[in-house]
């Protein structure tokens, strides 16, 4: 009995450590693993201009979680190399936190689920599924079934994350121009 309790405490302690500052840590870990020796600032807020926000929402048929997103400027060997953007979309009932890293032409280098909070639909976290967004930009097609694979048991998450990523491709230029 005592051994079980000690084990439980250890597991929860360990898990609690992971939870603390999880989103920030996980985001920076993703950037670090994408580039060799990147230099990046702390996350900054980008307030989405009202007109752009409304235009993109209409185009993608999905609202932004907030009227701002977070971004990181990523430098390599002293020059700006990429921009990482962090946002949320709603899954069936909980937010899904995701990151998209763009090159300076607005092409996706990598997309990644930073935090998933539900039992169902977690397949959107898989590397293979996210790989499909690589090299897409604001002009690309994001149709589910033909361009982006559906995931059995994750219909709502697939729709939400795909629209969320497309939204970021459409505000990328505005973020870049604000730097």
């Amino acid at each position: 009995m005592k051994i079980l309790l000690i084990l439980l405490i250890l597991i929860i302690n360990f898990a609690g450590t992971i939870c603390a500052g999880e989103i920030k840590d996980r985001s920076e870990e993703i950037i670090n693993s994408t580039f060799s020796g990147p230099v990046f600032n702390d996350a900054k807020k980008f307030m989405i201009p009202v007109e752009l926000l409304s235009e993109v929402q209409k185009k993608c048929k999905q609202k932004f979680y907030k009227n701002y997103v977070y971004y990181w400027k990523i430098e390599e060997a002293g020059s700006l190399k990429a921009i990482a953007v962090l946002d949320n979309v709603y899954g069936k009932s909980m937010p899904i936190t995701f990151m998209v890293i763009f090159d300076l032409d607005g092409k996706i280098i990598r997309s990644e689920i930073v935090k998933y909070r539900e039992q169902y639909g977690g397949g959107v976290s898989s590397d293979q599924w996210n790989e499909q967004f690589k090299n897409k930009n604001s002009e690309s097609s994001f149709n589910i079934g033909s361009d982006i694979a559906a995931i059995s048991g994750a219909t709502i998450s697939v729709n939400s994350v795909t629209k969320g990523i497309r939204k970021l491709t459409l505000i990328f230029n505005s973020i870049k121009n604000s730097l």
Partner: protein
Amino acid sequence: MQKIYTAIFITILLIITSTVIAQDEDFFEPKSSIGGYGELHYNNEKADGKEAKKVLDFHRFVLFFGYAWNEQWSLKSEVELEHNFVKDGQGELELEQAYINYHHADWFGFQAGVILPSVGLLNEYHEPPLFLSVERPEYSKNIIPTTWFGNGVALYGSHEGFEYKLSVMEGLNSDNFKNSSGIRSGRQKGYKADAENFLYNGRIDYTGLPGLRAGVSFTYNKANGDSTEVPLTLIEFHAKYTANNIHAVFEYGNISYSDQPVESSMGYYFDLGYNVASFFCDKMEVIPFFRWTDYNTVSSFEGGGDAEKKYHNKKWMVGLSVKPIPQVVFKLDYGVRENQLTNSEVKLFNLGAGYMF
């Protein structure tokens, strides 16, 4: 004893602390959410030498309601009205899901309340746009008693493309088992459920490749009623691939019973479909499909004989599933079911419209 209480208190404190630290209003706000699905069916069923039976039925209207108190703790519920109306044993109003969900991390969460055991592809994912035929596959009715729900608790999680779920819930009432429908009538549906013998269910799936879900589940229950006790095990395998315009599904299940004349129930089916809209339009899906089904609720009977043929049915089906958007579907299908004892045929033609949100 005092040490144990202290340990429990510290444990609770740690859970709460980790919850508070993880909370960040930029990424989470307490919120309620609604969803649901529904389906309208036209069924035309013509048995050999009989008049066709034609029915127009709003088969299911389902509302999902959820509320998230914080990132970890939430409520999920689902209420279903079947056949549009409830009166004198016709139609059903069911609380199919109502559970507290604690999501600690991807690898661990738990649920307590009215839950769904993880058996087959459709028991947990049965919204109309997710399967090709108008009605759910007959396998998912006669072998896997979809929708199977009941009072209990479950642990779940995922890691590196693998998902697991373990459930302990109310058992089945063996007094209500029928040769014609297997364990289906034995579901207690959470109604003052007899908790004499719990049902144990475990499932593991692989979802690491885009479009693929493949896995197995194992279920054990010493089902009991007022006059019977029937230990049973249900083992099933399922696989679904939906990518590159291909829709392929395969499910196989076997139930073994002890201490009664019926020794097993068995069935399988497969679907093959292709999204032909990909040749001319990328905004919608048009999926012609073929299905083959073989199921027998008395696949093995003490002493064998005709009893093993009486409920053995084979069926082929062709159909079309059209999705103007992923959440809305219009369907039609035609099939012939043949009974293996009488060789009699039933021709079935169905039309349907369904949605999910």
